[in-house]
């Protein structure tokens, strides 16, 4: 371990949200001149810890040191002034403003002027010094995703950030863009700064970081140099060693049944005329799980919605069974109405097709059955959906969509944001749906997850869908558009 000075040090940090303990006496040390990966499952407290360090959240207990001095933030403005910059997972850019305006946003002083020409010069100067080149006059909304990320970093650098915190920065980048970003971060750390990289991708973390800290359930459970730690040790620390991910899969059927979903030359175009799906043909058979993979924005979002009958193609023919379950990624927005009871949320699935009067007693019985059969922990079917934990909400959604024996089930990132136990439960449910003859389609941004589930793989690239072997290397090549 090098003896370099600590750029950022977090001691005994505790943060509660209501009765949820997000951080529990957690420690974290960032050495100057290093890239430090902060690893952990979703909900482990990584983002919370860094938001505290960035002054966006107030800790309930614990202390913060920057360059050896104890600091206390009133708001993120204080953290920014102390040389900390944060690039959030969901970019915080004002779409209607230009690059120069976005960079100048947050300059202090009520009467301080804003000179577009000087602001543009500043963007160009930073570009020349760091290689993060941007057009100062371009509107943020018009930038491609990679450039938006550059803009986020330039924003931080314009405030003289010496400590950069990046939250899942590669989630929206192509592999080559990720490579460029990582190389840049390494050179930034070597030149003057220090970098915290929040991620859940173990392999990437080991490749790019000097040091690694693993959070689990709000505590730092492992910390050390990336040279001395291996993948297995980190995964064990992330998962707590309680659950094996290599679960023996006994439900796989060798012979799939008849095709239930069939797409022929399907295309989808958005309102701006951008082709999101191009000439996709595929089918899904009873009793199989088809895995979908693709880099963000490759058309899988639209493909899943066509398969689920939620999106009508502009061209081509889609044969979709009448009863198809759909588990969308954002359950609190697209699947559930948080303020309504589980009974009403169950009835929701038939809201569009019902006529006449609602038979609430029936729905009540059905909701109770779904809750019982899918192990949803709730104080009752009349409690609102928002009172359930994320895992139980997802179990309920899945239960609702599997209720009434659907012919097909389409699931989009079904384990996102869930803890390991709930995630394993959800994956088991998908397997047992396959066993009972449902045609299952699963997309996951976690390639390992979809590969352990799928009988067949379909990879989206640039709006096209192609079949690939169920093999990590082959799928990864197809995701980049390389011929297999």
């Amino acid at each position, binding site marked *: 371990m090098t003896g370099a000075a600590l750029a950022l040090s977090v001691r005994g940090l505790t943060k509660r949200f*209501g009765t949820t303990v997000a951080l529990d006496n957690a420690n974290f040390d960032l050495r100057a001149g290093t890239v430090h990966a902060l690893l952990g499952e979703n909900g482990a407290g990584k983002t919370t810890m860094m938001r505290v360090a960035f002054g966006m959240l107030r800790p309930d207990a614990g202390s913060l040191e920057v360059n050896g001095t104890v600091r206390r933030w009133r708001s993120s403005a204080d953290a920014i002034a102390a040389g900390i910059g944060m690039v959030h997972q969901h970019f915080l850019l004002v779409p209607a403003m230009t690059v120069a305006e976005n960079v100048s946003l947050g300059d202090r002083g009520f009467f301080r002027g804003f000179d577009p020409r000087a602001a543009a010069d500043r963007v160009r100067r930073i570009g020349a010094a760091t290689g993060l080149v941007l057009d100062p006059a371009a509107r943020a909304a018009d930038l491609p995703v990679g450039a938006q990320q550059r803009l986020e970093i330039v924003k931080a650098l314009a405030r003289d950030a010496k400590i950069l915190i990046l939250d899942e920065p590669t989630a929206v980048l192509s592999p080559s863009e990720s490579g460029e970003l990582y190389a840049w971060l390494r050179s930034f750390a070597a030149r003057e700064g220090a970098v915290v990289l929040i991620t859940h991708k173990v392999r990437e973390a080991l490749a790019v970081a000097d040091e690694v800290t693993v959070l689990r359930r709000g505590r730092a459970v492992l910390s050390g140099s990336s040279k001395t730690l291996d993948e297995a040790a980190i995964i064990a620390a992330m998962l707590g060693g309680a659950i094996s991910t290599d679960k023996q899969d006994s439900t796989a059927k060798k012979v799939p049944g008849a095709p239930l979903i069939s797409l022929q030359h399907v295309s989808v175009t958005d309102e701006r005329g951008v082709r999101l799906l191009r000439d996709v043909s595929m089918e899904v058979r009873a009793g199989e799980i088809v895995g979908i993979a693709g880099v963000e924005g490759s058309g899988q979002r639209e493909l899943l919605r066509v398969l689920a009958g939620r999106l009508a193609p502009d061209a081509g023919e889609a044969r979709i069974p009448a009863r198809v379950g759909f588990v969308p990624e954002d359950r609190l927005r697209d699947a559930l109405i948080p303020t309504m009871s589980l009974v009403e949320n169950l009835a929701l699935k038939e*809201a569009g097709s019902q006529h006449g009067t609602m038979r609430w007693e029936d729905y009540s019985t059905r909701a109770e059955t779904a809750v019982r059969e899918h192990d949803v922990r709730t104080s009752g079917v009349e409690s609102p959906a928002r009172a359930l934990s994320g895992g139980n909400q997802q179990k309920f959604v899945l239960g609702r969509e599997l209720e009434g024996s659907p012919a097909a089930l389409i699931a989009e990132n079904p384990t996102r944001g869930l*803890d390991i136990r709930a995630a394993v439960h959800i994956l088991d449910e998908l397997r047992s749906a396959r066993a009972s003859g449902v045609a299952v389609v699963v997309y996951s941004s976690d390639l390992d997850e979809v590969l352990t589930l799928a009988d067949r793989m379909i990879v989206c690239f640039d709006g096209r869908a192609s079949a690939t072997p169920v093999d990590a290397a082959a799928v990864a090549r197809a995701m980049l558009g390389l011929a297999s």
Partner: protein
Amino acid sequence: MTFFTRAVRSQAGASAAAALLAIVAVTFVVMAAGYDVSRAAAALWDGSFGSAYSFFSGTLQRATPLIIVGLAVAVAFKAGVLNIGAEGQLLSGAAATITAGLAMSGWPAWLSIPLELLAGMVAGAVWAGIAAVLKRRFGVLEVISTLMLNFVALFGVSYLVHGPLQEPTHTYPETLRLAASARLPLVVPGQQLHLGFVLAIALGVAAHWYIRSTAGGFRLRVAGEGPLAAASAGRVKVDQVLFGAFLASGAIAGLGGAVQVTGVTYKLYELISPGYGYTAIAVALLARLSPFGVIIAGVFFGGLEAGGAGMQRDAGVPAGFVYVIEALVILGVLAVDRARTLAAERAPRVMGETEV
């Protein structure tokens, strides 16, 4: 179904708390302004619920348009449509009703009265329809468009009573009066309470049944509470539902205008609505958008307005004071509501599964 009664009970509790809060604030203001509180309160009571006359001819008569228009607002808000144009829809309904009523003079009551009310509903729906089309086709915020349309309707009525519909002597800016056969019958002997009140109650019951028990009512609720989930999980055509709710809301508000013309004023003039469309927002809100609640809140506000007149007469408290009370009730509901939401957000959740 116990859940529904429980929810309604707790919501009613919150509304009562808000009303109480407002009454305390009002008492304070009355005292601070140097009025005799007990005399003002007695006058308020006498003018609203204190006698058969004040109850039937005062409170319930004034409650009638508030209930009907309150239902219009509740239906729209329930679907997530912020229709603050009930005032304009009421005015266009009133104008259409008087036009139809005067044209049908001499027709039998059983024919002319339903047609008058129908004309009011259609006109209200058309007026709301302008904003609904602007919203659906062009994405125009209905808050702004309905507000604009309120003013256009106001000027429209002003034009009609100064122009084409003005009474033949051209002395007063008002229309001729409706023939007796074109007026709503009175329902309580010796009182001025008209059939419109019965209609309002029936409409409230029907709306309650529709929202609670029918598929269409459920669609209305899910479209308002969670439009994206309704579209994705329920395959509800949210656009269509909102459009329908907007038109229905306009039709109901138009009926409010029709009832006022055929039951109370018998003619059209510029100030036919002292802001029913705005007071109705307070009514609907106090009622938590529940139709039964609208009936109760409508009677409460009707009593306030009737009592306010009495308060001015007997205790010298200006009648405009009723607006202060109404405003405080809205603010009270908003504050109580907010406290409840905050409490709900603090409800326990399982650790590690909260996305933070």
